[in-house]
């Protein structure tokens, strides 16, 4: 699903793009739902620390006064976990953490992958071949496996988790950007610019970046969806973020031990939060893709 190569979006005017926005089609509706869901998560991510600070919500790590494994009640809407911590508060606090790590990781991947891809595609030759082989190898590896190795080596921590996630997505940006750069390089207008004395940096900036940038937003959204799942997977394996930070994956790992006794609330809410966020980001990405490619019925498959 991810890592697809997208068709070059023609440089359409904004008016034409708006005209294509047809909320009656499924893609349009999905995109709207996606925007709504992602905005809601962003809002929760911003407001939760504030509410905790003001004392409206309990501290996600405080729980020694509470009964442990209490079922959902008026006092604790989603119950408490094995240390008596409030599941609702931890689930809400998790959204900020997830968005933060994923955002940092993807920005890092973008900053590394895009220039590398542009250079590789533009320069060609053995540098290009070597980079392509390296990136193809990384790309072949299962996403989770790669980040597990890195997270294991880097240890727990917020920047560490972001770095472990980032490496997974660098090859995806590299591939898309590199292929487009190699294509654009051969175009007549680039040839013309070069013969007029334009240097490589000018050409990269003026012609490549603009062509390339259209395919990045879709990839970014779909990768964000994927990254939320990978971060959760890392947490579930006991990797990624430090134990003091409330994170959905590690909360689920702790919920697993109590599950056979029928304690469902510690497992339901963090997973549900993760599922809806991934769903929202996927909707947004899919809608964005059909919108940008100007075709609501046909999607590029590979």
């Amino acid at each position: 699903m991810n890592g697809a190569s997208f068709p070059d979006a023609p440089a359409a005017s904004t008016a034409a793009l708006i005209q294509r926005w047809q909320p009656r089609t499924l893609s349009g509706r999905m995109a709207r739902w996606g925007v709504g869901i992602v905005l809601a998560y962003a809002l929760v991510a911003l407001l939760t620390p504030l509410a905790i600070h003001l004392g409206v919500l309990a501290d996600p790590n405080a729980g020694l006064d509470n009964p442990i494994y209490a079922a959902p009640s008026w006092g604790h809407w989603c119950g408490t976990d094995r240390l008596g911590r409030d599941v609702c508060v931890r689930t809400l606090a998790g959204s900020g953490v997830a968005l933060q790590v994923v955002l940092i990781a993807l920005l890092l991947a973008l900053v590394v992958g895009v220039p590398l891809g542009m250079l590789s595609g533009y320069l060609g030759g053995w540098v290009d071949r070597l980079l392509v082989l390296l990136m193809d190898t990384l790309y072949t590896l299962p996403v989770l496996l790669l980040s597990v190795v890195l997270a294991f080596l880097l240890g727990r921590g917020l920047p560490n988790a972001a770095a472990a996630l980032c490496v997974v997505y660098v090859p995806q940006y590299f591939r898309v950007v590199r292929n487009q750069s190699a294509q654009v390089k051969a175009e007549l207008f680039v040839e013309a610019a070069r013969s007029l004395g334009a240097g490589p940096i000018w050409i990269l900036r003026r012609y490549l970046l603009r062509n390339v940038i259209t395919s990045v937003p879709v990839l970014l959204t779909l990768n964000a969806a994927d990254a939320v799942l990978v971060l959760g997977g890392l947490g579930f394996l006991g990797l990624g973020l430090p134990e003091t930070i409330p994170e959905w994956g590690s909360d689920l790992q702790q919920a697993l031990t109590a599950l056979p006794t029928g304690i469902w609330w510690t497992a339901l809410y963090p997973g549900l939060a993760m599922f809806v966020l991934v769903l929202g980001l996927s909707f947004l990405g899919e809608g964005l893709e059909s919108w940008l490619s100007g075709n609501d019925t046909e999607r590029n498959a590979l």
Partner: protein
Amino acid sequence: MSRRNELLRYLGARLALAPLMLWLIASLVFLLLRVAPGDPIDALLGPKAPAAVRAALRQQLGLDQPLTVQYGHFISNLLHGDLGLSQASQEPVAGIIRQSLPASLELGVTALLLAAVVGLAVGFSGIARPEGKLDLAGRLYGIGTYALPPFWAAMLVQLVFAVWLGWLPVGGRFPPSLLPPTGTGFYLLDSLRAGNWSQLQGTVRHLTLPAATLGLLLSGIFDNALRLNLRRALASDYVEAARSRGLGEARVVLRHALPNALLPVLTITGITVASLIGGALLIEVTFSWPGIAFRLQEAISQRDYPVVQGIVVVVAALVVMVTVLVDLLVALLDPRIRF
């Protein structure tokens, strides 16, 4: 050049690339350990270990030798199938992997078969009316199964069918009260071959929930791939030509569009399944299924570096080989591929 020669050349190039990629992966894993911030001895023993113990372990792991010598040892051991010893149990890592791989493969293959049947059926069902209710439902099904965190979906399934309803066991691969079947390590095959009914029953009962969960989660890939490619095939000129010859719609879909849509489905699912299997196999942890991912989690919690390294190299090698095999299969089946 004749088609036969071209095909052979392509196969040769693709096969030559595979060992190169494997070597690159092994070297990356080796390098990562050495350039990662912090001393690997610290990672294994903790920073407070006495100096003598640290020195002894350093020597035992060969970390006191120059990097090039270490690398030479690592690669030559790898070529001989020697992945080192587990820090936690002193067992050979290769043995640990050989023990747990059949469990993973049995789960994975059963789930893939299920995923293909369900996913292709869902993807095909929407074709009668594009953009109709069934088609849209199929599209949502594809996105929904992707968005479900695999280990969480497994927890819900476990809660409902094993804990609340009590229909099937909560976890594990085989009832502890019985002797597991011996032979290949694939319990389904082994118990069938031995003709042992109670063993087969135990195996199937334990396999049902994990395989069904993984199968349903992976079926979205098949659903998406078939739906998109079938639609593309139906919009093509040769389908138009077939229709204008007056052929019935059923014949057009089944004989003209479907065969052409299935080939890209093979490529896409091959690639996606290979990359997704890592995440999906996390359900092994949920169901305590004693496969490779379960071992990986164990090794991570014990900070058992040689086991983590071994599992990563072996799984990566398997994935690269599956990808190459799918490529070769597509090249063999598709008369148009020319390289």
